């Protein structure tokens, strides 16, 4: 059964490596932003690694992903190279979008990664459309649409859920419920805070899962996606998670207490998986050390790549405002 997760050494290692890559990358971005290598708005994923890792682990290369402005985790889990990702954050033309989009607008054709959307809720109709286009062209793909609890407030959530259910479009709506929409706590924004329940009003299946447990996320995602490939029916997967850092870099977090953050840090998904794997004898501490060393090298190399990168010539400013042809 494709929905069962057999957590063997390789799989466990893969999950841990994926999450560690995200965690260390985000830490590096945190540092680089403060020395103004990365500019503009940046939203870090520390604490939420299990969600993107678990869901994308259950996806196939032909599937599509739509994400939000907090999408470094999704981008890395999906396999976008750390180097082109870092170069994009630097704004260099060697970045995946020629440096045009920056942190909030990652696109990658090869991995069917469709952003990176800075408008809360703006990606949901897009995901519906991609799934629609895939279904019309008889592809087996599913589209995973990541969004936060804030997007649930927006009309586009309701329209998109309705359209996907009505037209039976294979969209996996993944709500990364980290309890805050910037500074707005969920209970102050939503009359119904159990987000998974909202799917019922659209006649859509759903599940709420512990977003700090990567295995639980993967299991749930696998189950939902397997069904979706058959029935094309959409699914809402609510992942209860938490971001350890502020909404963005410039945020004093006046809206939540240190105790709350500390409480959630104890559920750190990376530590949890690592401890669990170690206790289960599926990984040794020195192996983790080697993984970390490898990641550190990878990050160093990505930073060097970005540092050595070049700026897109100003003469090319208007390129791709309009396209000459549809890229194949």
């Amino acid at each position, binding site marked *: 059964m494709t929905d069962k997760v057999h957590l063997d050494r390789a799989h466990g290692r893969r999950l841990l490596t994926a999450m560690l890559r995200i965690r260390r990358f985000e830490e590096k971005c945190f540092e680089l932003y403060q020395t103004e290598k990365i500019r503009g708005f940046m939203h870090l994923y520390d604490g939420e690694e299990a969600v993107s890792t678990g869901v994308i682990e259950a996806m196939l290369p032909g599937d599509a992903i739509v994400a939000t402005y907090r999408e470094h985790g999704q981008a890395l889990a999906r396999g976008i190279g750390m180097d082109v990702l870092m170069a994009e954050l630097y704004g260099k033309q060697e970045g995946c979008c020629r440096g045009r989009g920056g942190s909030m607008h990652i696109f990658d054709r090869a991995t069917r990664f469709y952003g990176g959307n800075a408008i809360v809720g703006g990606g949901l109709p897009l995901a519906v459309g991609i799934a629609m286009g895939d279904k019309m062209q008889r592809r087996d793909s599913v589209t995973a649409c990541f969004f936060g609890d804030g997007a649930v407030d927006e009309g586009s959530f309701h329209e998109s859920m309705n359209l996907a259910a009505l037209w039976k479009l294979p969209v996996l709506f993944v709500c990364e419920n980290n309890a805050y929409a910037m500074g707005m706590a969920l209970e102050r924004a939503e009359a119904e805070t159990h987000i998974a329940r909202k799917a019922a009003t659209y006649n859509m299946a759903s599940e709420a899962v512990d977003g700090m447990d990567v295995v639980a996320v993967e299991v749930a995602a696998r189950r939902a996606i397997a069904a979706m490939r058959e029935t094309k029916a959409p699914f809402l997967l609510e992942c209860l998670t938490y971001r350890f850092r*502020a909404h963005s870099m410039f945020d004093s977090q006046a809206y939540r207490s240190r105790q709350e953050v500390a409480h959630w840090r104890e559920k750190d998904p990376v530590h949890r998986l690592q401890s669990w794997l170690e206790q289960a004898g599926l990984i040794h501490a020195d192996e983790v050390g080697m993984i970390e060393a490898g990641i550190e090298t990878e990050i160093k190399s990505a930073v060097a790549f970005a540092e050595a990168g070049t700026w897109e010539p100003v003469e090319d400013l208007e390129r791709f405002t309009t396209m000459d042809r549809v890229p194949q």
Partner: protein
Amino acid sequence: MTDFLMPSLGADMEAGTLVEWLIKPGDTVKRGDVVAVVETQKGAIEIEIFNTGVVSEIVVPVGALVPIGTVLARLGDAGVSSEPTRPTGMPANGTPSTGTPPTGTPPTGMPPVGMPPSGIPSTGMPPVGIPSTGMPSTGTPPTGTPPAGTPPTGTPPTGTPPTGTPPTGMPPVGMPSTGTPPAGMPPTGVPVTGVPLTEAAGAQPAPPAKPPQPAAPPPTFVPVRPSTGAARPRISPVARRIAGERGIDLRGVTGTGPGGAIVLADIEAARAPTAPPRRRTGFDPAAMRQAIAAAMGRSKREIPHYYLTQTVEISAALARLQSLNSERSPPERILPAALFLRAIAMAMAATPELNGFWEDGRFRAGDGVHVGWAIALRGGGLVAPAIRDADRLSLDEVMAVMRDLVQRARASGLRSSELSDATVTVTSLGERGAETVLPIIYPPQVAMIGIGRIVTRPWVVDGTIAPCPIVTLTLAGDHRASDGHRGGLLLAGIDRNLQETDKL
């Protein structure tokens, strides 16, 4: 030794106030430790250090508002530093990012942005290092403040320091002054602290009194407005352009557009004389006679003429002409008139008071020496088109222009600008004229020169009498614009030019 700098925490953060230090000199810190708390527009944010080492110095005190990149503290050599933490700031293409200090570390000991510099009594704020024009760079403290070199004691001056706001008018240290205050900042010109802007902006010294301006040079354009001082006429862009291309003097054009604006149709109509409309060939002698009569009548009525004559011996000039013409066929030969014109033009350039116009009760110098050359037309008319910048043309050029003008004048092909541009007029009666001509000035010019017939007369040469070619030049001058003295200088100049033939 590594520096710990004020980090950038957001796209619109330019500075932060250090409100709490969680370390002190001697403490060991490692990468990731929270070492301080910074207050920003968005509230207090804990900041981490990315180096490992021993704190050797706290540079910025609690309460100080400092821009991004300021050295906050220093770590000693026991530290292992990670990648360089200093902001390198500028992208390679040289575009400064707003709010970014330039490469390198800002000068140490710099007082925080936002503190009023010297000139305002404030507790504990020496002006050391404030880069504002007019301020001493090494900081002569004002009376009553601690001497230069003393670290600020940390007491804010009266009034609340603006968070993140440099006083308007003075760019924050190192930042390119973009001229636009950051979003959310007080509007330009409003001092945040309530202190008058000039003081808050660094009490720039009053600019030195300007030296008295020299008299403005005469305008080099011909104003369109008529000399009666009427309101400036409106001209459509295309009318102005076509008039310029065709050399039509807009002063003579009546506008039929909205509000009397001159429009293209008016320029089209201006090519032909108003009554009756005529073709290019031929002219109306009666109309011309009337025009001449009007001009001459006005001249004699309004202009107080004075007359000076000079008899000039021109054997040298004629010899020069002969030698120039010896190798030329008749169509290329230079006539004496050209010689005279050139001599006159060069002399006029040296006596500018005679080269111009009397308008509105005063003299206006011409923008060049444009000599009007009186040409008699068959049928009895007279025109005096201008040879522009005659003083700068060579003899050959003057001759060529004269030929062209004569030919076009007789074919009625002169441009109106040629008819109106002359700054002085020269008339020659030629070979059949009288010996002396007393010309009547063509207003609004202020001088006219007449050239009589070249005759052979007895002349004193080296103490003996010999027959020589002489010509009588007469200057008519407008006594409002010049006097006999200037006029005499002009004639003397012409005489001299006709003698120094190699300069012609």
